[in-house]
């Protein structure tokens, strides 16, 4: 038995390192490692020798079907408890993963939206499901007929209660999620499927495969109030600015249009304000900056792979960054000056960038096919992403939910002064 013949390649390096750096402490105290020491040791090993290495554990149980109708625990909780970190720690793996069977793997659709009432809507095939983030409960909103479906877009109204559902047959259904009733169907605004939508108060803007953009006033009978023409191919990205003054649209024709409501009074009311042609592939990813007005971020598809920043007042391109892969979606952080992008081939990752330096802060991997759809929680901490690998993943990338809850209370208890007087 070759017990003691030293052999470099067979040496257990991480054990050796551990002994060299921390071994003395272990002899005095032979109990199980405290989480703090575990974290320290891991960090030390990483710094000293293991920068190139990632250790992965295989889930040796049969892969339990983690359903949309979830069980008690999340799947990603096998790490030892992380000790307190001074800075914000961005978890490298998804906080939770849910099954999303029949999610359509189509770049041009928008099948995920997180409403202000903290309910996430996701369209799987012909069915729209609602997932309540506060109690993790799932309910089915509607299943459309085969001939009308599949569902091609979902969009919550600002009130977080009403929801619009775009269909493959070009119609748009309007639902009240509180009473689970369909309120109306918008017909005749498009000639083919409605893949993108954006709300602006009572105006629902829809983008179609026919290249048309229609502003629908959902309160009135004759709902079409405006039609924006300019895109030659499918409109896959549609976002209103925070002020509701400007609308950004991205199409399969590689063009980004900025439409301005104040131009409605001029001679050509449906003419665009800016036509931005710098992208060399379809533009679906659009995001207005929350902390700087008139700043729009756009992301290009597989042949482009860049994120571009625009001043929508002048139409100038401020910056262009090559991300290396298809940009499917963009989200700005509400808490920090950061931008999150989701990508396709090869890594299918979510990348967090510091703005404006565009330094990569984190790359979140987990999806095994392109991360096509993203939505942000109303408290701004969590991002949900869905992909053709039929999973819906949640990432605490923008912050930890608890932190948001400990915001200082403005209201003091009534009669607090009375107590002191005693």
């Amino acid at each position, binding site marked *: 038995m070759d017990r003691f013949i030293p052999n470099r390649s067979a040496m257990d390096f991480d054990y050796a390192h551990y002994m060299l750096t921390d071994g003395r402490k272990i002899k005095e105290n032979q109990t199980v490692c405290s989480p703090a020491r575990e974290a320290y040791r*891991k960090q030390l090993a990483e710094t000293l020798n293991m920068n*190139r290495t990632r*250790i*992965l554990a*295989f889930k040796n149980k049969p*892969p339990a079907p983690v359903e949309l109708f979830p069980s008690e625990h999340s799947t990603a909780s096998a790490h030892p408890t992380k000790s307190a970190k001074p800075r914000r720690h961005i978890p490298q793996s998804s906080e939770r993963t849910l099954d999303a069977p029949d999610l359509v793997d189509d770049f041009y659709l928008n099948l995920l939206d997180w409403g202000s009432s903290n309910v996430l809507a996701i369209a799987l095939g012909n069915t729209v499901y609602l997932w309540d983030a506060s109690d993790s409960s799932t309910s089915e909103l509607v299943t459309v007929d085969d001939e009308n479906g599949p569902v091609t877009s979902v969009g919550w109204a600002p009130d977080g209660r009403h929801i619009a559902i775009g269909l493959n047959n070009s119609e748009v259904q309007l639902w009240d999620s509180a009473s689970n009733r369909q309120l109306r169907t918008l017909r005749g605004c498009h000639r083919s499927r409605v893949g993108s939508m954006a709300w602006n108060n009572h105006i629902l803007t829809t983008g179609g495969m026919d290249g048309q953009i229609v502003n629908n006033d959902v309160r009135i009978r004759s709902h079409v109030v405006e039609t924006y023409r300019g895109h030659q191919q499918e409109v896959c990205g549609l976002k209103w600015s925070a002020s509701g003054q400007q609308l950004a649209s991205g199409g399969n024709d590689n063009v980004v249009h900025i439409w301005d409501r104040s131009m409605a009074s001029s001679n050509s009311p449906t003419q665009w304000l800016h036509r931005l042609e710098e992208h060399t592939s379809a533009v679906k990813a659009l995001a207005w900056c929350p902390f700087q007005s008139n700043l729009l971020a756009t992301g290009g598809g597989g042949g482009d792979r860049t994120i571009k920043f625009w001043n929508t007042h002048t139409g100038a391109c401020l910056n262009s960054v090559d991300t290396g892969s298809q940009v499917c979606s963009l989200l700005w952080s509400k808490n920090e000056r950061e931008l999150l992008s989701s990508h396709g081939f090869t890594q299918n990752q979510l990348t967090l960038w510091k703005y404006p330096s565009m330094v990569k802060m984190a790359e979140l991997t987990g999806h095994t096919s392109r991360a096509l759809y993203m939505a942000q929680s109303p408290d701004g901490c969590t991002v949900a992403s869905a992909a053709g690998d039929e999973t819906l993943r949640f990432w605490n990338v923008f912050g930890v939910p608890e932190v948001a809850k400990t915001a200082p209370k403005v209201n003091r208890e009534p009669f607090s002064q009375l107590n002191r007087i005693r």
Partner: protein
Amino acid sequence: MASRTVAKDIITLRGSAAIVSEFFGYAANSILYNRGVYPEESFAKVKKYGLPMLLTQDEEWLEAGKLQRVVMVIMSKATKEVLERWNFSIETDSDVVEKGVSREKSDREIMREIQAIMRQIASSITYLPCLDEPCVFDVLAYTDTDVPVPFTWIESDPKLIANPQMVKLHSFDTKIHKVDTLVSYKNDEWDEQ
């Protein structure tokens, strides 16, 4: 055994990855069987769902040259304390991964080397401490950091044993991948120090 190219002495990257991955399958099975880790019922489940999935992923990583080692960890089911750790370190010929060349080594030679290791694993029961409590196992893969994490794997700590005894077993070499085997185990009697 594994699929081979027609000219039996030529080893390609894919062929080598297949051999190594198959070896892991045999080794894992042998360890679990010899150490009596799993009762009959759960073992069938593990075999059906666990190992084939593990092996496919390994093969992918081996072909990319991104797998550094595979570790099988045996832990007490009750306390999760690591009792035994089977470490298979992999050295990959980067020339082959980058340039796609192939190497020459006879099948029989490789088989002989693997058989020697399998015999050593089987006879390890003569010196490894008895596992007389219910145990579970985990498989760890040390990969390069640029490898995307597949859905069925999560990040982990190395699950080391404090103050282990270590025994180095034989290694085998396909001329593209070289695999070393080391088993470390928790000391049975503290007096031995």
